[in-house]
């Protein structure tokens, strides 16, 4: 079988030529970004989280690298608003990229407004960002309340035709929230978003991010993300997109073994670009072969058999 064949995998709404896409928020709010995604060799792309109205985002610093590893961001969901989506989706499709639109809002109605535009303009799927950790009212408050998760997901799935995915973050109720999202019609779960964190500069004695609290991403959150994927897969066996700290094929393979059938890379994709995509794809092919799997699908959740 060809390399592409071994790695091809189906998630609701999309036949992926391989499992890797970008994580929401790494570029993805401007049509010109699509060419960069294309050059990276991603199988599908996810937009920045879009809200009904344009958002300027926070004052800088919005993203920093940490001396202890990883990145911290509080961008404040900067995006040009839902009216800019058609142009963005068209630009992706013109390059042959399936486009997943990430939708955000403070109420179920706002999520729906964005989702309807995405649905009408040819998005392949909609990912509901129920887990932004640093923008008040826009995320984790929803994602850590299973009832709210149900309401938002239900409102959207009852209004659009394309498949809806729910992106959840780290919370004590992530299994319960996952269950509610699936019950409300989500076809896939994207796990996980960034984790709330703060960095203080001890020379100036000040927190560095303008918003003080941001979301931690990159290699430090990988084991946490693998744990969440593992637990949710064990309890519910849903379609899972694993995200958090992917930096090479091994960190990608771990997600697959835990139960993810597709993958997203954010921080380290921005750092390494195309070479990360190559490393992940080549490494996964070798890994599958060395274990005698004929396809990636056979390896999904394989570590659950302990």
């Amino acid at each position, binding site marked *: 079988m060809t390399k592409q064949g071994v790695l091809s995998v189906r998630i609701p709404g999309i036949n992926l030529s391989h499992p890797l896409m970008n994580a929401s*928020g*790494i*570029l*993805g*709010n*401007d049509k*010109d*970004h699509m*060419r*960069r995604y*294309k*050059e990276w060799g991603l199988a599908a792309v996810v937009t*920045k989280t879009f809200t009904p109205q344009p958002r300027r*985002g926070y*004052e*800088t*610093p*919005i*993203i*920093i*690298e*940490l*001396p202890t590893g990883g*990145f911290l*961001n509080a*961008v404040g969901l*900067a995006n040009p608003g839902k009216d800019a989506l058609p142009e963005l989706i068209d630009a992706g499709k013109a390059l042959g990229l399936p486009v997943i639109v990430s939708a955000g809002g403070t109420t179920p109605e706002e999520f729906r407004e964005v989702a309807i535009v995405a649905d009408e303009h040819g998005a392949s799927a909609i990912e509901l960002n129920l887990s932004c950790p640093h923008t008040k009212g826009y995320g984790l408050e929803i994602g850590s309340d299973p009832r709210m998760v149900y309401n938002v997901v239900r409102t959207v799935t009852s209004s659009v035709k394309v498949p809806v995915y729910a992106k959840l973050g780290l919370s004590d109720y992530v299994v319960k929230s996952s269950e509610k999202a699936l019950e409300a019609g989500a076809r896939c779960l994207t796990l996980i978003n960034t984790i709330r964190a703060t960095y203080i*500069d001890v*020379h*100036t004695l*000040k927190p*560095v991010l*303008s918003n003080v609290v941001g979301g931690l991403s990159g290699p430090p959150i990988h084991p946490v993300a693998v744990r969440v994927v593992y637990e949710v897969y064990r309890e519910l066996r849903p379609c899972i997109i694993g995200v958090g700290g992917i930096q090479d094929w091994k960190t990608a393979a771990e997600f697959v073994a835990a139960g993810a059938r597709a993958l997203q890379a954010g*921080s380290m994709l*921005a*750092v390494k670009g195309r070479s990360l995509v190559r490393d992940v794809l080549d490494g996964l092919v070798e890994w599958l072969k060395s274990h005698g799997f004929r396809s990636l699908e056979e390896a999904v959740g394989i570590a659950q058999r302990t």
Partner: protein
Amino acid sequence: MKGVPRPAVVEHIERISQTYYWLEMRIIEDVIEAGPGQFLIIWLPRLKEIPMSIATLNNDTVSIFFKVVGKGTQRLAKLSPGSRLGVKAPLGRSFTGMVSGDKIMLVAGGTGLAPMIFASQKLIESGKQVMLVWGTPSSQDAEKVHSFLKRVMPRAVEVYVATDDCGYGFCGTAVDLAYELARRDKPSDVVSAGPRPMLTSLVQRMRGLNIDPIVLLEEEVRCGIGMCGSCIVRGTPFLLCVDGPAFRYSSVVSYFEHKI
């Protein structure tokens, strides 16, 4: 680790002229290595971050050349020795590998002089012949900055100054002067930084001499490390903070065609 705001302290600050300032910072317990065109982001605690070109760099000490345009640069101008800051550096890509030949003409407008100070130092070190053309509106600034440059630039660089008010140096724009010099001296390459209208007119004039200049562009830089996407160079897949700010003009033509 270029995205980590490293602790730094102001060593020296000087108002060179009415418009232009010079500020030297020392990175605490760290050194940085960079090439021409690369920049840094200065974190002004609890205010904002501002991108600035590297004007000079010696191990742990880095200088910038700037003017006041808004609240960040206002605060910057009021700092004093001992003030603490953060510095993300080096960002972007050095353009040393892009320049062709040994006879380089640098053309700067206003604060576009900053990266050219660093470039002349690096190009002279690598054995090139360098001439620098700088234009600024007022002769009052021009005279003071010109004499200041003698302190911070290698002596081997030939410096030419142009002023719009005609009170100092060449009477006219940096582009007019650069064009005349380029016709006479036939540089092997031209590198330019300055306001977009100046770059536009430069590339048009140089086309007549069959020169495709390297241009240093400006876009809004919000993260500096390739994540937020704000610095996308219009009509191209390039991120200014990762792939730039220096580009061969022919690879970024659409930036110049895009309306502001």
